[in-house]
């Protein structure tokens, strides 16, 4: 207490003699004093001098102590300025009215110097306590505001990184309800350069800052690898490895990733630790995809399993992913959102268009009732749409490179097992993306590359017949056969070469793929687009539409595609 500045005490009494006595008593205790002789003066001095304690006579001319006390108490707001009434009245009613007027205590005349000193000291302790609490409260408020401000900025940065994908696409509906400023859930979606889309849903242990920090590298790896044309296995592998490195033991991320292929009407899925991913078929069935793996970030790269499940998904069918928030709601709300409850709900529902809005309404309802903030609830619906709808909408890609590789060639050759193990498309795309403004046509280039390379491998090197794919079972047979033959490759190679030539308004990209296989009869190829009912054989006819020319040479094991592109109007504006 020695460090607190000398307290100032306001003494108010109309009796000059009493004033002098009290003033002397208080001063002798070492306090600073100011003196007023009526209520009005007291208020005036209170404002001017800001005393710490007020000793106030009850009955005074002009304005009495009761009224002055009320006024002063209304002026002090948050501060604590004790008012001690000095009074010769000693009936209960008068003493009560002292306290009712805002007084904190009273002293009866005649004064005892010991009692005055003790009371002032008692109130001094209370003032000190009050000020300490107030200072701590202000500090907490200040820090909290600072923290919220920081979180706001961090969230902004996070949103810029995490939500630059295509969550707004017409075939995605999603629901993200953050528990605090940050959400323990991560939802990412991005279009593949080859068409189709990849969706990722992750749920971190815990919430807030740690989860958001963990989400940042996930988002970066995801968007980077999808843009370069890598498959889900590689993406999930890299994310796991990153999280395994950066997360402390005990922290991990339950996740699902889905590769949606519009052209083949198929999905490829990996689920580690999330609830069943549900696929609502057009015939009303609901297929669950169980979590077959440990969550991300737990296992080292050697032990991590990237094995995915594949399944047909026809146009109009919907796939649902959700975080454990929906399960948590069960405890509070009964049956509505339990896992089986939702699967049952999907099964019974005959109007799939309404499923999402139903969940959305339920979620809003529970949010209003304040029961959903136990955990985050993230819910996504992805609809399979036909490739024609997607490719008819040109995506504008920002491109600020004014210089870059315009006139170049490269060649790349793979042998034996590498043909099976390595996907060369991301590497090729990476180089073609160095051509300024060709990036906008990334989708086309990727398509041509993957068709030519797949044909070279499947038909050239492995001798697979695509008519095998003409039935649903045949599809599976085809892939089994493909995997089997791939692992037995020997003495074979695949040579890919690219040449880009610039011209004034665009450029020409020549892609040559040469395989060491037996070749095939290229005169027999039907270059027309097959009928919708036909499952396979879309590849080459599609390429003839995209390219200026497609030529087969030799015995059919050399394919050359010439792709001519023109700068678009939109492109020049960017």
């Amino acid at each position, binding site marked *: 207490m020695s460090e607190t500045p000398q307290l100032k005490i306001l003494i108010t009494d109309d009796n000059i003699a009493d004033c002098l006595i009290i003033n002397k008593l208080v001063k002798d205790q070492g306090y600073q004093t100011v003196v007023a002789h009526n209520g009005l003066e007291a208020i005036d001095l209170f404002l001017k001098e800001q005393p710490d304690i007020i000793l106030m006579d009850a009955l005074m001319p002009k304005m009495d102590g009761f009224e002055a006390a009320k006024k002063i108490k209304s002026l002090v707001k948050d501060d604590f300025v004790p008012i001690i009434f000095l009074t010769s009245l000693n009936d209960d009613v008068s003493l009560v009215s002292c306290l009712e007027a805002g007084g904190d205590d009273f002293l009866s005349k005649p004064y005892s110097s010991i009692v005055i000193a003790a009371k002032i000291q008692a109130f001094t302790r209370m003032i000190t306590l009050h000020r300490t609490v107030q200072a701590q409260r202000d500090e907490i408020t200040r820090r909290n505001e600072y923290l919220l401000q920081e979180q706001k900025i961090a969230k902004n940065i996070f949103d810029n990184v995490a939500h630059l994908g295509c969550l707004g696409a017409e075939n995605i509906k999603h629901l993200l309800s953050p528990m605090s400023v940050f959400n323990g859930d991560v939802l990412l979606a991005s279009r593949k350069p080859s068409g189709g889309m990849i969706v990722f849903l992750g749920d971190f242990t815990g919430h807030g800052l740690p989860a958001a920090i963990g989400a940042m590298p996930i988002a970066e790896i995801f968007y980077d690898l999808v843009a370069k044309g890598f498959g889900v296995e590689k993406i999930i592998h890299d994310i796991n490895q990153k999280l395994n490195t950066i997360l402390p033991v*005990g922290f*991990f991320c339950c996740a699902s990733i889905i590769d949606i292929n519009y052209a083949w009407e198929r999905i490829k899925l990996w689920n580690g630790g999330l609830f069943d991913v549900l696929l609502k078929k057009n015939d009303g069935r609901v297929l669950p995809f169980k979590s077959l793996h440990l969550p991300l970030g737990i296992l080292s790269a050697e032990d991590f399993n990237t094995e995915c499940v594949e399944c047909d998904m026809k146009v109009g069918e919907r796939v649902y992913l959700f975080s454990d928030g929906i399960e948590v709601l069960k405890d509070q709300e009964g049956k509505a959102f339990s896992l089986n409850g939702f699967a049952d709900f999907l099964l019974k529902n005959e109007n799939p268009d309404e499923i999402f809005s139903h969940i959305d309404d339920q979620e809003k309802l529970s949010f209003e009732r304040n029961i959903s903030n136990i955990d985050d609830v993230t819910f996504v619906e992805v609809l399979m749409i036909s490739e024609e709808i997607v490719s008819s909408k040109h995506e504008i890609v920002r491109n600020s490179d004014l210089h870059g590789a315009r006139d170049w060639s490269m060649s790349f050759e793979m042998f034996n097992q590498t043909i099976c193990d390595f996907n060369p498309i991301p590497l090729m795309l990476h180089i073609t993306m160095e051509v300024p403004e060709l990036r906008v046509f990334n989708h086309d280039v990727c398509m041509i590359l993957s068709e030519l390379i797949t044909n070279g491998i499947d038909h050239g090197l492995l001798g697979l017949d695509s008519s095998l794919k003409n039935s649903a079972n045949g599809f599976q047979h085809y892939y089994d056969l493909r995997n089997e033959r791939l692992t037995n490759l020997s003495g074979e190679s695949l040579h890919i070469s690219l040449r880009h030539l610039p011209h004034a308004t665009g450029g020409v990209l020549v892609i040559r793929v040469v395989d060491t296989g037996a070749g095939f009869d290229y005169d027999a190829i039907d270059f027309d687009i097959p009928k919708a009912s036909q499952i396979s054989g879309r590849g080459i006819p599609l390429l003839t539409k995209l390219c200026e020319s497609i030529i087969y040479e030799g015995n059919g094991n050399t394919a050359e595609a010439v792709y001519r592109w023109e700068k678009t109007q939109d492109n020049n504006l960017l």
Partner: protein
Amino acid sequence: MSIVSHLSESGVTMKIAIQGRFDFGSHQDFRESYDKNDSSVKEYYVDMAKTTYLDSSALGMLLLLRDHAGGDAVIKIINCNQDVFKIFEISNFDQMFEISAAK
């Protein structure tokens, strides 16, 4: 929620019983239940007979125990009720721990 641990006389086997909800709030207690012992424990039994609920932070805590126990020790999670067992199943923690349901 309460967590009680019991070390066998030989000091080789430790039993940790978890009662009620096993979630982030149990972090400190769970850690203390095994932390006070030296590393001579070779077998841990986590008894979930009276565990009513398990969340993802609890899964994280089990990973911490695994880390603490080291590669040589065995961790067995026993007497899981149906709900708790389902959570282990979904997270595929049976790939890392020996997990058994209540009889």
